[in-house]
C-alpha cells in the first residue's frame, strides 16, 4: 500500500473539536469550516517519519503509555518542553504536536487512510483541543431541541449506540466518542462537534436492520470491532442540556438524577489526563465547577440483558420529563 501523499492542491479548511483545521491531505469526515465564530487554528501536514525522528530529542519524558502491562505498548505519548509532544501509535504512525498545539505533523505507516486517521481523530486532535484551551470528555453527544445531551462512559458502555439511536429518532449527532467543551461569552458550557463519523460495533450492528444502518449514513470503513459510518453533525456549538453517566454494573432505576452533581464523576469523565500544567489543571477544575453548577447530570443504568437501542425511548422520556419539571 502506498503511503499517503501531500495534497497537490490548496489545503482544506475544516472545523472539529472546536478547532479550525488547515489540512494538506484528504481527511475523512472532517466538516468544512464555515462558522462565523473564530476558533483556534491548527495546521496539519504529512511528513516522513525520518523527519519527525530527526527533530525529536533523544531524551524526552514519557507522559503516558497505553496497552497491556508487560507487553509492547499500543501507543505512547512523550513530551519535550521545546519540541512538543510525540504520539507513537502501533499500526497507525507517529504524530508530532508542537508545544503550543498549532502544528501537527503526521507520519502514518503504510495502512489505510481510515486506520491511521482513527488515531488522529480519536487521540491526537482531542489532545490538541486541550492544548488550545478546550476541555474534552469521554462522551458521545447529540443535539435535541437545541440542547446537547452527552453520554459519558468508557469503551463498550453503549454511548455510541445511544447517540445513534437518538440520531435515528431525529436528533443531530454532535460527536461520537470525544466531546470538546468550551464556555461561551455568557459562561455557558457548549459542546463542539467532532468528525462526521460514528463507530458502530458489530454487536450493536447486529441489532439494527439494514434499512436503519443505511439511514444513518454511508459506511466509510471497518476494522476488527465494527464499522465507521458517515453521519452529519450539528455544526454550531450546542449548549449542554444534560450529562448522562452510563452504568452497566449496578441495579436500580433506569434513570436517576444526580443531585447535587458529583464532582468526582465530572472530573473522572475527562478524556485527557496527560496535560498537567497548572493552567490546564485549573481550567479543568473550573470547567468541572461550571458543569456542576449549570448542567443537570443523570445516571443511566443499562440492564445487562438489554441494548441501549431498546431503552432509548424510555431514557429520553424520563430525562426530558425531569428536565422540564426542574
Amino acid at each position, binding site marked *: 500500500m502506498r503511503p499517503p501523499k501531500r495534497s497537490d492542491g490548496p489545503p482544506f479548511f475544516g472545523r472539529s473539536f472546536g478547532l479550525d483545521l488547515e489540512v494538506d491531505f484528504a481527511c475523512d469526515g472532517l466538516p468544512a469550516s464555515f462558522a462565523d465564530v473564530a476558533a483556534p487554528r491548527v495546521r496539519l501536514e504529512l511528513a516522513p517519519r525520518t523527519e519527525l525522528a530527526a527533530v525529536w530529542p533523544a531524551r524526552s519524558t514519557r507522559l503516558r503509555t497505553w496497552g497491556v502491562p508487560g507487553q509492547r505498548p499500543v501507543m505512547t505519548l512523550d513530551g519535550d518542553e521545546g519540541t512538543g509532544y510525540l504520539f507513537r501509535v502501533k499500526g497507525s504512525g507517529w504524530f508530532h504536536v508542537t508545544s503550543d498545539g498549532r502544528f501537527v505533523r503526521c507520519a502514518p505507516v503504510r495502512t489505510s487512510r481510515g486506520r491511521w486517521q482513527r488515531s488522529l481523530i480519536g487521540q491526537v486532535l482531542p489532545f490538541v483541543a486541550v492544548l488550545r484551551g478546550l476541555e474534552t470528555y469521554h462522551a458521545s453527544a447529540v443535539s435535541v431541541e437545541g440542547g446537547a445531551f452527552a453520554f459519558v462512559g468508557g469503551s463498550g458502555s453503549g454511548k455510541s449506540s445511544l447517540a445513534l439511536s437518538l440520531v435515528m429518532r431525529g436528533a443531530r449527532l454532535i460527536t461520537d466518542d470525544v466531546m470538546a467543551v468550551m464556555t461561551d461569552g455568557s459562561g455557558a458550557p457548549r459542546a463542539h462537534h467532532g468528525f462526521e463519523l460514528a463507530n458502530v460495533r458489530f454487536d450493536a450492528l447486529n441489532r439494527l436492520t439494514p434499512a436503519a444502518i443505511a439511514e444513518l449514513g454511508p459506511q466509510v470503513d471497518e476494522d476488527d470491532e465494527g464499522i465507521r459510518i458517515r453521519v452529519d453533525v450539528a455544526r454550531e456549538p450546542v449548549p449542554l442540556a444534560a450529562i448522562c453517566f452510563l452504568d452497566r454494573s449496578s441495579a436500580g432505576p433506569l434513570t436517576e438524577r444526580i443531585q447535587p452533581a458529583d464532582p468526582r464523576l465530572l472530573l473522572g469523565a475527562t478524556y485527557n489526563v496527560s496535560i498537567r500544567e*497548572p493552567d490546564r*489543571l*485549573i481550567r479543568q477544575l473550573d470547567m468541572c465547577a461550571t458543569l456542576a453548577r449549570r448542567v443537570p447530570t443523570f445516571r443511566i443504568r443499562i440492564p445487562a440483558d438489554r441494548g441501549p437501542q431498546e431503552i432509548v425511548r424510555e431514557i429520553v422520556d424520563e430525562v426530558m420529563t425531569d428536565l422540564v419539571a426542574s
Partner: protein
Amino acid sequence: MTEPTLSRDAIEHVRVSIPEHVVFREFDTDTVLLNLRTGQYHGLNKTAGRMLEHLQQTGSPKATSEAIATEFRHPQDDVLDDLVELCNALAERGLIEIHAPSEA
C-alpha cells in the same frame, strides 16, 4: 518555619495559610482541592470546606472555630477538635501551611 503538626493547645496561637500551588472550588456538598504540584485532587465535606474557606479568609484557626461553631451550631470544643484533625491532614498533604506564633 512551618509547624509540621498542630496540637489542640497550640491551635489558638498559630496562623494558617494556603500556598499558591493549592486551589480549591466549592460544589454543593463538597469542596475539591487541587494540588498543582502533584496534580492530585482532594475532597472535603461541606463542613471541612467551610473551615477551609474561613482559614483562607482569616488565617486564624481560632476565628475559624468560632465561626463554624456559630454557623453549624456545634460546641466550639468539638469544632476545635475537628479543626485540629483537618489542619494536620491538610498540612500532611501539603495543602496548607501552619505557621508558628513567631511567624505571625
